[in-house]
């Protein structure tokens, strides 16, 4: 209590009338105001002591006794990375990443730091972090193993105005073991939200450059960009705003009231719709020092003119490299140059895109001509595994004949392992420890190189498609993301805004103005048309009504039960499942499956209309990001129903009844491929057709023979 205010005048006074001694009852009191209502002398004044102590009421408001004025808290302008996520992990004995930091004015930076932690399994003495700032090496750092992130100070004077590039290269050794397992257990993580520069809030100048900087950092934080007063904007204006935001920083709008309770994280910037005044835009200083893009909308709720100066229209994003069927293409041409591996476990992926109308279900072959080299004397059991879309194509031993150029190896594989749309080629190398139960004696170093001259040849196919969500997802314009007619709660709107922000156009992919994605939360799931799928609210509730993070996939594929001894129907069903390969009936496939969102195409006859049902408690931004990334994901939704798991992966259901649809005239040239596709899609159906044609042919032949023989008798 401050001295000046600590004066407590203890007065001992005689109280003429006395009060009731304080009574504390144990039970929750009932309020009896009767004594107060009776007036006159207070009825409880009889047993109070004659003298009581009286203080001058005073309350001390000071949290601590401040010897000096406090310094204002600092704000952190965090780093960005090309990879998704705010915690970056580098696994294996060596690795690296590249980080960015945009800084309009370098003089405002007080401290530059990187927040990291490492696995408890790494051996510090043989591990090192090497960091460069704008190309200048900083002192190597011996990491300290802790379970908490720790801040590593970097020379702030190396920063420049504009974009700064910070590279991180790690060398890390397992303290006990050596080998692929040990490689998995050696990792370093970098918390980007806690890495960057500290600066005083007041140093965020109110100009477009700082707005953009703060916007990028805010969007990257994963917390979204707050939008206050968004109700005053029309739906079109909100969509436009979401679109512009994604273009500026890939961020998404997070509507909020502005009244709290406040989230733990401090906002660097936000957008506020200001009521009153002429339509216009200004930059203001909000609470906590945040830069506020203040918008005064038009009376109709449209965005004010001049938005381009602050939030320009978005540009499209690069598509996956395209592979043209029938043409041999090098991996280098697909963006995969010579690539070396240096860890006991290493993996390199290459994603590429095939045309949506490319479809091979039969036995045509594709070819990968692998050009590679590896060092001599690798431990026994060293292998290279080549995969396509997660399916192994070839296992190559690397423990013999190393150290010399290898002739190109032609790997022939079934083209049906490839998908229309996104595909993934993977090279996975594992090097056993030598010995495995001791720390690696020396760093492995680069031991395998996959040449960029490795080439891939995919056979041509007639233009065919099986109905599915893949092409529609690519073709949905932002304006096609909508809400159900009888929507909609805050969750629906959040998901819609997030999707609008995330569905950045992709280079070279044309949009279909008729394509739509309707977003509903589970509480509005009755809006989803049953369509041919027959999914109802109960089904969706079963899938989505699980705690977030608790989604499940059946341990094994659930197939229609086949009891050969019980009924002819069961036998027929079993035959049918063998005769028409693919996923089981939807009701069976759904058994035991749960997730955070369901993406579906209710009616295969209307492939342009998709629905997204977001589960309760799901993060709309996470769901939106998963949907947007599915357009580039080889394991993304392709069928008619897909369930999003908590890890961002999709479980995808294809209707076995969905037939390939030929999109070009049937001709002698393509007949064999088309017939092969149909035969592969439904062998029983194909056999029955052939049987029918044969029967007709036999019948015609018999008629001809009988008719002809009868003529000769006459």
């Amino acid at each position, binding site marked *: 209590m401050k001295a*000046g*205010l600590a*004066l407590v*005048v203890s*007065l001992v006074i005689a*109280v003429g*009338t006395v*009060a009731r*001694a*304080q009574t*504390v009852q144990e039970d*929750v009191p*009932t*309020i009896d*105001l009767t004594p*107060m*209502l009776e007036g006159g002398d*207070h009825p409880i*004044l009889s047993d*109070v002591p004659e003298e*009581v*102590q*009286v*203080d*001058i*009421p005073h*309350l001390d*408001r*000071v*949290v601590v006794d*401040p010897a000096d*004025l*406090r310094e*204002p*808290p600092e704000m952190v302008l965090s780093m960005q990375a090309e990879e998704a996520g705010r915690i970056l992990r580098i696994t294996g004995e060596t690795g690296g990443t590249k980080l960015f930091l945009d800084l309009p004015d370098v003089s405002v930076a007080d401290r530059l730091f990187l927040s990291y932690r490492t696995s408890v399994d790494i051996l510090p003495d043989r591990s090192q972090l090497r960091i460069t700032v704008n190309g200048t090496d900083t002192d190597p750092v011996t990491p300290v193993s802790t379970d908490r992130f720790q801040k590593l100070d970097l020379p702030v004077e190396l920063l420049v105005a504009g974009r700064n590039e910070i590279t991180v290269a790690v060398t890390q050794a397992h303290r006990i073991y050596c080998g692929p397992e040990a490689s998995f257990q050696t990792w370093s993580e970098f918390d980007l939200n806690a890495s960057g520069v500290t600066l005083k809030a*007041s140093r965020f100048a109110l100009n477009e450059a700082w707005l953009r900087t703060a916007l990028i950092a805010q969007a990257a934080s994963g917390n979204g960009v707050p939008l*206050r*007063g968004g*109700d*005053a904007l029309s739906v079109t204006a909100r969509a436009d705003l979401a679109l512009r935001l994604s273009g500026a920083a890939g961020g998404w709008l997070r509507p909020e*009231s*502005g*009244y*709290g*309770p*406040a989230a733990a994280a401090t906002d660097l910037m936000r957008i*506020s719709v*200001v*009521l*009153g*005044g002429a339509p216009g835009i200004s930059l*203001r*200083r*909000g*609470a*906590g*020092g945040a830069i*506020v893009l*203040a918008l*005064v909308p038009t009376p109709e709720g449209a965005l004010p003119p001049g938005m381009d100066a602050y939030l320009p229209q978005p540009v499209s994003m690069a598509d996956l490299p395209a592979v043209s069927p029938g043409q041999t293409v090098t991996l280098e041409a697909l963006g995969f140059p010579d690539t070396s591996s240096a860890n006991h476990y290493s993996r390199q992926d290459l994603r590429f895109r095939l045309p949506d109308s490319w479809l091979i279900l039969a036995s045509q072959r594709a070819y990968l001509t692998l050009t590679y080299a590896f060092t001599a004397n690798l431990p026994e059991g060293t292998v290279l595994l080549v995969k396509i879309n997660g399916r192994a194509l070839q296992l190559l031993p690397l423990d013999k004949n190393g150290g010399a150029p290898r002739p190109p190896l032609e790997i022939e594989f079934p083209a049906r392992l490839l998908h229309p749309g996104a595909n993934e080629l993977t090279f996975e190398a594992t090097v056993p420890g030598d010995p495995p139960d001791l720390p690696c004696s020396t760093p492995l170093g680069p031991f395998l190189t996959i040449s960029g001259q490795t080439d891939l040849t995919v056979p041509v196919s007639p233009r065919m498609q099986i109905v599915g969500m893949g092409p529609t997802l690519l073709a949905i314009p932002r304006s096609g993301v909508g809400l159900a007619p009888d929507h909609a709660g805050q969750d629906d709107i959040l998901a819609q805004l997030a999707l609008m922000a995330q569905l950045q156009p992709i280079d070279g992919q044309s949009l279909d103005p008729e394509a739509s994605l309707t977003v509903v939360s589970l509480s509005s799931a009755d809006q989803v048309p049953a369509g041919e799928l027959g999914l109802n609210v109960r089904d969706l509730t079963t899938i989505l009504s699980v705690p977030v993070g608790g989604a499940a996939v059946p341990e094994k594929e659930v197939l229609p039960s086949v009891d050969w001894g019980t009924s002819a129907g069961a036998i027929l069903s079993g035959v049918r499942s063998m005769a028409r390969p693919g996923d089981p009936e939807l009701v069976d496939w759904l058994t035991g499956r749960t997730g955070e969102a369901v993406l579906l195409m209710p009616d295969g006859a209307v492939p342009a209309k998709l629905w997204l049902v977001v589960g309760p408690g799901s993060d709309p931004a996470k769901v939106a990001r998963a949907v947007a990334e599915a357009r580039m994901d080889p394991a993304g939704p392709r069928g008619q129903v897909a369930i999003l798991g908590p890890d961002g992966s999709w479980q995808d259901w294809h209707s076995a009844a969905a037939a390939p649809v030929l999109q070009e005239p049937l001709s002698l040239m393509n007949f064999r491929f088309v017939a092969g596709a149909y035969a592969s899609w439904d062998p029983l159906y194909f056999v029955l057709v052939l049987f029918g044609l044969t029967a007709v042919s036999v019948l015609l032949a018999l008629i001809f023979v009988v008719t002809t023989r009868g003529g000769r008798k006459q």
Partner: protein
Amino acid sequence: MKRRDALAGLVAAPWHGAFVTGLWAQTAAPTLEALLPAWAAWKLAYLTAEGRVVDVLQQGASHSESQGYGLFLAATFADRAAFDSILGWTELNLAIRPDALLAWRWLPDAVDQVADRNNASDGDLFYAWGLVTMAAREPSAELLTRATAVATDLAARCIVPHPDGSERMLFVPAALGFDRDGATIVNLSYYMPLAMRQVAAATGVAVLSRCAADGEALMAALAAEGLMPDWIQVGPSGTSVVEGMSDRNGYEALRIAPFLVWSGNAAHPAVARQVGAYRVAAVERLTPTVMDRGTGAVIENSPDAGYAALAALLDCVEGTIPGAALPEFTTDQPYYPATLHLMMLIAQITVYPRCHPL
């Protein structure tokens, strides 16, 4: 004004209108519905299940101020359960004086938990305001009678004649202990003009309203000299510093201008003084909490959002540009700034919608 009319006026007040007319739908200007999450957080942080509003910085005490503030907030948010619990605890533990006023402090760890039976007039005032506010919402003779008893005794014991012999009156901080040799010690932050007028109108204790006007006049006179002081002594020949008590613009006085603004008196010179001092002392994310009354020099500052809310609302009200740098409500601060924070958000929504948070 008849009591019935006064109660009708309370119901028609903007914050009540939001509830009574059911304007819960989303509109451009938010209603008090927007504050319900903040109110829930406030209760969780500072209100016990028994109805005790805990001020941790005062040894975990509850006092008539915290109970009065809490009762008013519960009534404002039409939270009958919270209202009843606060009322019940207060009646049981603090309504132990021979009059209708409340003992000012209850200490949880003391042997005699209410060692001092003196009252604190601001706590009594807010307590009465809470009662009439709820009585306006849910007509109750009991509540109104209790409020009338508090107002009557407040007038009788805490409103005193001005020492200069004029007809003006002073609102003293407590029934006892504030007379000094013919002068009277006053804490101007105990005046809450809106509360005094609404309680006066609802209970018929009109002297409260007149005292509010006199207090505003006293504040205006003091504003000519500088910022509002925490404590001031009013004697027959004018005002003077109270020996041994703060005459700084500190944690007490920082409520004065916001209460004036909340009462609709934004043009009061004390408001302009306070805003001017805040603007000169502006430091991002820190709010002056103690300033020199004459120079405005900052003596203490605080990162607590509630104090920033005071300054932000005043700044907006004093200006003409829509939007204010009002922080979101947070319980990451002690009871006192948190409660003032919530009050400022109520004032913004109900009186100054153009000052919505940026």
